[in-house]
Each structure stands twice: as structure tokens, then as C-alpha cells.
């Protein structure tokens, strides 16, 4: 069953005007983040003003694809499911530092692996399982 088509499945992301490009890229299998047109700094979640160069007169951004690879900063295994469509089996949730920028972080599910446990600094890459007709949900797997 495709998750987004399951009437009791997990919630699907509902893009806003500002976040739509993120999800359009994700649907094409790319991780893309909002990038400042002046200084090149990436931001997640999207911002109205760049937190790096503080250009406030005429802020401008584009969504730029990144490699989708990075390292695990921290993680947990969630047992207590409070969101519809989750549980009873526990799942792994990770915070990942993307390779492109020290403070570019993304948090998502890590697909479990039969003989690997998460560890600090472990390398991961993004995949994009389809959870609704037009939604690919960025999810991490171990890189190798």
C-alpha cells in the first residue's frame, strides 16, 4: 500500500508557497535547499532573510540541489508512536549534517539496516520514497 493512499497512513507534507520548490525537487529524487543569491548560504527550513549575510534590502533566494550525502549528528529510536500511521514497530529518526555546509541540517527517518546501527558521524545519503502521488519524502540510508 502506498502510504499516502492509506486513509489511516502517516500524514503527507502539504507544501506552502515558500516550501513548494523543496518538494518539487524531492519528487524528482533530489534534495534541494533554499540558497541565498548574495552569499550562497543554504537555509533549512526556508527563511525570509538570510541568516548568514543579513541582506535585508532585497532578499533573494533560489532552491539549489545538494549531494544529499552527510553525516549523522544524533539520533533516536522512537517507540512511543503519537502520529497517525506510525507504530507499533519502533523506527530510527536521525539528524544529519549535509556535506555542503556545517550548519545545514535535515532530520528524517533512517531506514533500518539488518546489520548496522547508527553511530555518531556515520555517513548517510538521501533516498526519496513516494508517499503520495506527487510527494517523495527525503529519507536517509547508510551510504555504503
Amino acid at each position, binding site marked *: 500500500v502506498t502510504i499516502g493512499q492509506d486513509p489511516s497512513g502517516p500524514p503527507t507534507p502539504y507544501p506552502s508557497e515558500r516550501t513548494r520548490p523543496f518538494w518539487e525537487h524531492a519528487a524528482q529524487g533530489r534534495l534541494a535547499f533554499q540558497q541565498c543569491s548574495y552569499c550562497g548560504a543554504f537555509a533549512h527550513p526556508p527563511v525570509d532573510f538570510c541568516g548568514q549575510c543579513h541582506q535585508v534590502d532585497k532578499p533573494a533566494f533560489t532552491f539549489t540541489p545538494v549531494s544529499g550525502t552527510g553525516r549523522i549528528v544524533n539520533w533516536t529510536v522512537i517507540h512511543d508512536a503519537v502520529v*497517525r500511521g506510525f507504530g507499533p514497530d*519502533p523506527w530510527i*529518526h536521525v539528524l544529519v549534517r549535509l556535506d555542503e555546509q556545517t550548519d545545514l541540517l535535515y532530520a*528524517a527517518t533512517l531506514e533500518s539496516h539488518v546489520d548496522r546501527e547508527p553511530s555518531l558521524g556515520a555517513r548517510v545519503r538521501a533516498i526519496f520514497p513516494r508517499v503520495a502521488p506527487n510527494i517523495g519524502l527525503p529519507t536517509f540510508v547508510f551510504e555504503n
Partner: protein
Amino acid sequence: MADRHLLRNKVAIIGVGYTKATRNDDRPVAALAAQASDAAILDAGLTRSDIDGIACGAGFPAYSSAREHRDGIDVVSSDFLARHMALPTEWSLNHDSFPPALAQAVFAVGSGAARYALINRTLHQPPGRYNSFAQPVASGPTEWTAPYGYAAPTVGMAMLYMEYQQRYGARREDMATLVLQLRDNVQQIPEAYWYGTSLTFDEYMTSRTISEPMCLYDNDIPVDGSASFVISSAERAQNSPHKPVYFTNIAAVSNPPTSCPGSYGPLDDYYEYGHHLADRLWSQSGWRPADVDVPQLYDGFTPLVYLWLETLGFCPAGQAWQFIQDGHIANNGKFPLLSGGGNQGWGRLHGLPHVLECYLQLAGRAGSRQLARATTGLSTYATPTLGIGQAILYSSERRS
């Protein structure tokens, strides 16, 4: 660096009132708020007609769901309390959280905007699950979280705690020392939720996992409960029935880092940004960690105690799990951490037990648990890094 605080010891707590923390109370929480507030006003030797300032922590700390928050039933706001207690207030404020509301009231009384201010926080345990997300689509901030099954803050806390454990070698066994001590501490406090219920090491170690490595007893239990404080200028406080307890310094988080949704961010951010608050607290007060007699560090999630101990400099980074061992934090030990039982002993009262214990100890009103030395106190709230975090220093001496 900022100057010494101009309000140093110029405002004092002169009365307190609090209810027993319970589950499934059949009265609306409005009744608890009025009961606690009348008790605090009486304790301060005043009547309702003396209260000209009011501040409430009126946020409902359940996340992600579309839940209705009714005044007097789910939360209690300043407007509600002033209206239904017929308080002649001229200054009022609502804040999501209680300790920040208290800080604003101290500033108001210190500046002369109010003579006698009442500060209340009332918490309600709602029916059903505290945090839940039942909607089919995730929009707004939940767009980045709910599709991954992330809704409860305990998950973000668990991620930080996992990083801490992995980096420093701490284990759940080490945290058990703290949780058992807090449970022990409230066996002398009948109003605390866990009064009369013991907890063993084995029960802690085998309790249900919420989000690894956090178990049930690393989270405070949701309760119905309320506490009120009355504060005044130091001058007016000299006429009150009990010994006043003075606010020596208040430091709040400023310029917090932006955190990645679906997480509490990296552990390093907590050390880096937490030191900003700590530096202000110690430099403005002129105190050092060793000067604190009554340390009441926020423990809504148990790993927060480690973060506060380390960022405030009570012990080096990565060593809090060792610092709390070997009887060091017992009430008769060298560092009577959370002698008042904190949120883990009282239930989810969001910083009330911490302020209350500083007051009771410094006023000499802590009864059977009165510490041998209690002239200075410290209460903290939330985290040393995120937007609502703060720390308050107290003194029993006006000239400290």
C-alpha cells in the same frame, strides 16, 4: 559585558500558594488557580484588593494537534484570573511559560508599574494522549516533522541525550541516580504528585521506552496543578509576615540558534550558546557556581539537568553523569540538587517546583527538608539554549 543588574535584590517574593498535583481532577483548573492565588495573597498578609499587577504562564504545552485551549479549563490567563477574582490590576501580562512571566513581573514591580504582583501558573492534564497528531496532512511547521512520525518534544530531547551518551560514555544506570533521588525527595512533600509512591532502580531500568535512550521516568508526568507567588518591592516586603526572598539576578536566553525542525539541534550548540546565558548570569551577579546553596535545575526531561549542570559550570562538559553519583546530590550531600523534587517529583508543572523550593528554603519554610545552609538559590527553566530558557538567582539577604 552587561552591568550589574539594576534590579538586584530590589524585588522579593513575599507569599506563595499551591495545590496538590493530581491526575483527572474533576474541577476545572480555574478552581486550582483561584485556590492557589488566594492562598498566596493570604500568605503575603494581603487581600485581593491589594493586587495591582498580574502575570500568568498561560501556554498549553502539548504539541502538534489541533486542540482547543479554553480559558479556565485548559489554561488560566491573567485576564481570566483578574476577572474571576475581581483583582484591581493596573498591569498585566500573559506569557506562554511561567518563569518568563515571573521575570517580567519582577521588572514591572521593580520599575514601579505595580506594587503587589500575583504570578500564577496552572497546568492541566488533558484527556487522551498529551501529544498526538491525527491529521492526514502536515502543513506549516509540521510539514518537516509529522511525516516522519515526529511530534513530541521528548524525541528531540532523546536525540540530544543519545549524542551525549555516545560521546561521553554515560549510561541509563547513571541517570537512575537522579530520578531515584528526586522520587525520594518528594516523599516529604505531600503536594507533589509522586508523594507516597516509591521507585526502585529496577523499575526505572525496565520501564517503557519512549524514545531511546529515554524511558517513561525520564519524562515528567502530566498533571493538574497550580501555584501562585506574590512579589513586591524590597521596601514593602519588610512589612510582610514571612522572610522575603530577593531576586538577585535574572538571565534569559537571547539570540538562540535556529534549530532544525524534527530535532533539538546538535549537542555542541547547547554548549556554545548556553555559555552566553551562563556568562551573563555569573558576571552580572558577581557570584560563582560554588556560591549557590539551593540549586533547582530544570528537569522536565531528565537530560536537561546534565545540560544545565555543565553549561552553568557546576562541572565540566561531559561529566554531569559522574557529578551526580556517590551521594553528592542527596539533601545531606555537598550539592542538594533539586531538594524540592523538581518536575520529576511534582509532575509537569513547568518550573513551578524550582522557584517554589528556592523560596521555601531561603525563607526558612522548607520544614523537614530544610537545608542546613540556604541563603542563596538558583532556579532554571527549559534549556540554556532555546528561546524560553532562563535562570534566576535568589538571596535571603537584601544586601548580598
